[in-house]
């Protein structure tokens, strides 16, 4: 019951933040959607970090390290430290500048202007919303799994929820967390979301370190923390301490996954909140270190959980590993606080929800309705209804269990397929609307085919080509993550169709390129 009370207190705190942000709101659209472009470097770093480090980073990384071993850190943490900062430098800063200069609040506004085409928005909107929903699903599934696991036994006295071991059933936990996120996103806007994200970063970083220390000391059983860490690793198999379970081509192909950050709508919206270009320096430099501070403990915990002495039952599902460790090795109060930390990470799907609402408002309602057709009040009601519908769909999808890690990979692969589009829009004058639309269509098509071939994400080991393709001599094309194929097809469509169609007008180009 203590865990449950701590979780309730944390959720109430989030609501207070939304209320406080609402009270400080300037009442303008630019304040609601991009916090009046006023965030300094520290708040930008904390908010961005929370936005990108969702349940995937805590629940997903721990669970996959439980299965694959320490190599999971190299698969995504060190790769993201290189590639995320690269994307912030090459994509975020120029987009922030264009967004501020031309007043953009969504990616689609930028692409419509840059490509002088309305249709690119029609094509991008449903795909981006679909991918954001699959990304938000990570948070919904992750938060439900964690709350359900750590509250086991909380209702034993009154005999409620026997089917979930007298804990809060995962679907109910997911629904309550989603409701809290909904309320503070609706009332707090981007400012409330940024504040909540910053607090969430501080919480999950600090609680992550506490979890690591507490569980290491519990597993090692001595007074020396470093000796406990050593013992915890020595208790695991050699395969878990090396990368024996990870094929090398797969490791290489994971390097492309973090490119997805360049096309996340919620991250784009976060970029626009920056006060100046210089505010990006902290995120660019700090990201690799913060990712390390979060992933190193999480991956270690996952590896430790695989040892028989950890007390985590063999065959535990990946989504349950972190919660099972916490449940085994921490007291009720600490378990509640640690769960609040995990929830903090899981709840960062708030920025995905506000991004979807902003896209609907700006790219559909405001874009297509004649000026004055709808009042501000009507637009806000429509936006809230759309966000409600998106959350309802996300909750419904959360009833079909998938590993958080795999859900994330498919979502990220779709976004990575759109990387050539944003890169070319910023750096290639010859990009045409037809080339951009061909790239988006190719991404949608190839992503859908591969997702279908993987059994809609059920096959966690799905790779493409499905078997090695022989080339000349000893050379073969090995099976790799689907993201590699998606990226290649998307790039080929973008370049070939752009070169076969008339170049954009000089008037359009002059808005986006210096001579």
């Amino acid at each position, binding site marked *: 019951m203590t865990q449950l009370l701590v979780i309730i207190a944390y959720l109430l705190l989030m609501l207070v933040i939304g209320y406080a942000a609402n009270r400080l709101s300037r009442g303008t659209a630019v304040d609601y959607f991009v916090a009046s472009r006023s965030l300094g470097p520290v708040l930008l770093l904390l908010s961005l970090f929370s936005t990108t480090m969702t349940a995937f980073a805590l629940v997903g990384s721990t669970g996959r390290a439980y299965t694959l071993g320490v190599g999971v850190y190299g698969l995504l943490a060190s790769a993201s*430290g290189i590639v995320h900062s690269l994307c912030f430098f090459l994509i975020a800063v120029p987009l922030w500048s264009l967004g501020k*200069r031309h007043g953009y609040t969504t990616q689609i506004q930028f692409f419509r202007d840059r490509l002088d085409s309305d249709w690119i928005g029609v094509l991008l909107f449903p795909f981006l919303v679909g991918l954001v929903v699959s990304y938000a699903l990570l948070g919904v599934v992750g938060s439900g799994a964690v709350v359900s696991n750590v509250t086991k036994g909380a209702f034993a006295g009154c005999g409620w929820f026997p089917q979930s071991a007298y804990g809060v059933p995962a679907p109910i936990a997911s629904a309550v967390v989603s409701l809290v996120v909904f309320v503070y996103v609706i009332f707090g806007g981007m400012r409330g979301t940024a504040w909540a994200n910053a607090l969430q970063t501080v919480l999950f970083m600090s609680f992550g370190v506490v979890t690591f220390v507490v569980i290491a000391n519990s597993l090692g059983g001595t007074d020396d923390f470093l000796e406990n860490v050593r013992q915890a*690793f020595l208790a695991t198999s050699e395969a878990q301490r090396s990368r024996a379970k990870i094929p090398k081509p797969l490791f290489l192909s994971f390097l492309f996954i973090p490119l997805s950050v360049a096309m996340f709508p919620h991250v784009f919206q976060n970029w626009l909140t920056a006060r100046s*270009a210089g505010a990006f320096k902290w995120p660019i430099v*700090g990201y690799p270190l913060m990712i390390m501070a979060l992933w*190193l403990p999480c991956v270690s915990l996952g590896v430790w959980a695989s040892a028989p002495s950890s007390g985590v039952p063999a065959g535990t599902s990946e989504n349950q590993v972190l919660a099972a460790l916490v449940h085994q090795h921490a007291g009720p109060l600490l378990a509640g606080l640690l769960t609040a930390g995990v929830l903090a990470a899981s709840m960062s799907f708030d920025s995905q929800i506000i991004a979807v609402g902003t896209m609907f408002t700006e790219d559909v309602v405001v874009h297509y309705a004649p000026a004055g057709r709808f009042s501000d009040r009507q637009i806000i009601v429509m936006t809230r209804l759309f966000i409600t519908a998106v959350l309802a769909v996300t909750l419904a999808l959360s009833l079909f269990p998938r590993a958080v890690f795999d859900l994330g990979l498919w979502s990220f692969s779709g976004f990575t397929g759109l990387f050539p589009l944003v890169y070319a829009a910023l750096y290639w004058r010859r990009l045409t609307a037809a080339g951009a639309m061909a790239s988006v269509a190719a991404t949608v098509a190839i992503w859908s085919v591969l997702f279908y071939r993987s059994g809609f994400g059920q096959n966690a080991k799905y790779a493409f080509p499905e078997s090695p393709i022989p080339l000349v001599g000893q050379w073969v094309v090995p099976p790799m993550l689907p993201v590699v194929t998606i990226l290649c097809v998307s790039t080929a469509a973008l370049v070939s169709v752009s070169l076969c169609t008339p170049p954009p007008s000089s008037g359009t180009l002059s808005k986006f390129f*210096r001579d």
Partner: protein
Amino acid sequence: MRYATWLFVCLLVVLHQDYWQWNDASLVGGLLPSALAYHAGLSILAAVVWWLVTRYSWHEELEVDTVEEPRA
């Protein structure tokens, strides 16, 4: 210096593919598995390289040129 910093970024990508210690299960310093210690070190190196990039290859023109225009 601009080209040198970008060379460092490419070097990070190459160093990320550390195939030579693939099956090494030993603990570095008796504490962390070698793959984990190596990639944690790579994260620290990445922060240093990105600091160099922000120091020597920064978008100075965007710092002064970005003026807000009303959206049509």
